[in-house]
């Protein structure tokens, strides 16, 4: 990956970078309701519209339910549509999320991942997105501001592809990423326009050629229409790879469905998503210096779960550690743990998987903690101790 000189980068928080990218996409409609830690994204966008820098309709709605409803309606007219939310806001959108995907609205939404009440908490975890992971949305996790900026363009191009036509969530860890300032390499408005020409779609609301959108469907048709969402989302891995290739040709930056680091000869693989995956990468590099054969698999495309991209990396590994920043109370595993274990079972790979829930409500996890988690796994494997199955909680007050 080509690295740009720091002095050529623009200092921006991830939220500012997302807003700047959305402005460069020449979005038509933004409907959003502010909520911490997403606020800066929509604040900046409303400023762009107010200043005349962005010719878009900014709909200041009274709730997230209305925000997503307005986005669905706008998207059905053929418009390019963006929104952003977090936590309780995503929860309030919940029923409309399914409508957005099933009506095949290519809305792009930045989610500044935050814990769900109660207790009320404004800090990062992935409970919000995990609660809506079956809503038929494509979900991408980012590890830093640069990925967030780049993924916005890719998300629109992917979402609006006529073979896909699905909404895309770009997940940004609240505060850890949303409020962190770093140097961002930007593309020019011209490059943005080349990469993302105005949206063209075949079916849209237009009084000169009436069509029915959102019709009632009884048992005779409902199932087929829902299945369309599943078959469309299955096409995402291949399509996203194409989108990334085009973006790479322009920028030299490419992320893939999974961020694999030192997995070639790894005995223990660490699976993680979001900002903590970046910290984990540092931990892996330190372990490698100590001769520990550990590798990282950062889940960048979460829905659809990129089984084909992950499997080649885990073949040959002796054990996996899966870190989840969300709970699934009562389930046999936490969300990413469930996906990983299903994937392994289907592939006939029977290796131990330690599944930890960590960092709820913004509790930090350091590189040193990742190191100790992996070291413990390596020791257990060497001594032949059985690996504890089921869900464990990391960093919990004892």
């Amino acid at each position, binding site marked *: 990956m080509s690295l740009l000189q720091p002095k050529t980068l623009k200092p921006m928080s991830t939220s500012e970078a997302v807003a700047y990218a959305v402005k460069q996409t020449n979005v038509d409609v933004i409907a959003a309701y502010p909520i911490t830690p997403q606020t800066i994204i929509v604040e900046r966008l409303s400023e762009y519209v107010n200043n005349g820098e962005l010719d878009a309709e900014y709909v200041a709605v009274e709730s997230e339910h209305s925000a997503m409803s307005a986005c669905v309606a706008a998207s059905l007219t053929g418009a390019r549509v963006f929104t952003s939310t977090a936590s309780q806001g995503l929860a309030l959108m919940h029923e409309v999320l399914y409508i957005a995907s*099933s*009506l*095949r*609205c290519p809305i792009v939404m930045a989610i500044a991942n935050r814990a769900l009440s109660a207790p009320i908490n404004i800090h990062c975890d992935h409970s919000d997105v995990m609660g809506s992971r079956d809503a038929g949305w494509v979900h991408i996790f980012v590890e830093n501001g640069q990925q967030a900026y780049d993924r916005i363009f890719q998300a629109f191009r992917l979402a609006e592809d006529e073979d896909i*036509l699905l909404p895309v969530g770009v997940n940004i860890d609240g505060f850890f990423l949303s409020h962190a300032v770093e140097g961002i390499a930007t593309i020019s408005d011209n490059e943005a326009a080349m990469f993302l020409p105005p949206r063209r779609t075949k*079916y849209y609301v237009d009084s000169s*050629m*009436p*069509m*029915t*959108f*959102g*019709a009632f*469907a*009884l048992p*005779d*048709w409902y199932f*087929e*229409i829902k299945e*369309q969402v599943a078959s*469309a989302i299955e096409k995402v891995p291949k399509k996203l790879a194409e989108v990334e290739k085009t973006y790479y040709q322009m920028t030299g930056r490419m992320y893939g469905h999974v961020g694999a680091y030192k997995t070639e000869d790894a005995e223990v693989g660490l699976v993680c998503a979001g900002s903590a995956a970046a910290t984990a990468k540092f931990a892996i590099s330190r372990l490698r210096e100590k001769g520990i054969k550990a590798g990282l698999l950062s889940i960048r495309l979460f829905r659809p779960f990129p089984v084909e991209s992950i499997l080649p990396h885990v073949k040959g590994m002796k054990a996996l550690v899966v870190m989840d920043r969300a709970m699934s109370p009562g389930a046999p595993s936490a969300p990413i743990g469930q996906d990983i274990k299903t994937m392994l079972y289907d592939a006939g790979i029977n290796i131990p998987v330690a599944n930890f829930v960590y960092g709820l409500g913004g509790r930090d996890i350091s590189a040193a903690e990742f190191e100790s988690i992996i070291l413990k796994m390596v020791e257990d494997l060497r001594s032949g101790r059985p690996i504890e199955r089921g869900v464990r909680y990391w960093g919990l007050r004892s």
Partner: protein
Amino acid sequence: MVKVETAILPGGVVSRPGSTTDYKTGTWRVKKPTVDLNKCTGCLICWIYCPEPAILKRHDGKIEFNYDYCKGCGICAEECPPKAISMVEE
């Protein structure tokens, strides 16, 4: 159940306008409306109220019914000012 036999478009979009006319809801009826043309003044209050619309306007300004779509709801009979419409067994 009457099926609209077209390919399923993305999101279940129905691209042909007026496709609901394929769906003859007249079979739902229990009672059907009839009109006493001697009492009918041609005010068309029934035409306004009919949710389908299954009230048709005749050349003489009075009304008749499209029984293909009339569900027999009886709103026309209820609203008719001169009580010219009555609901009768099929």
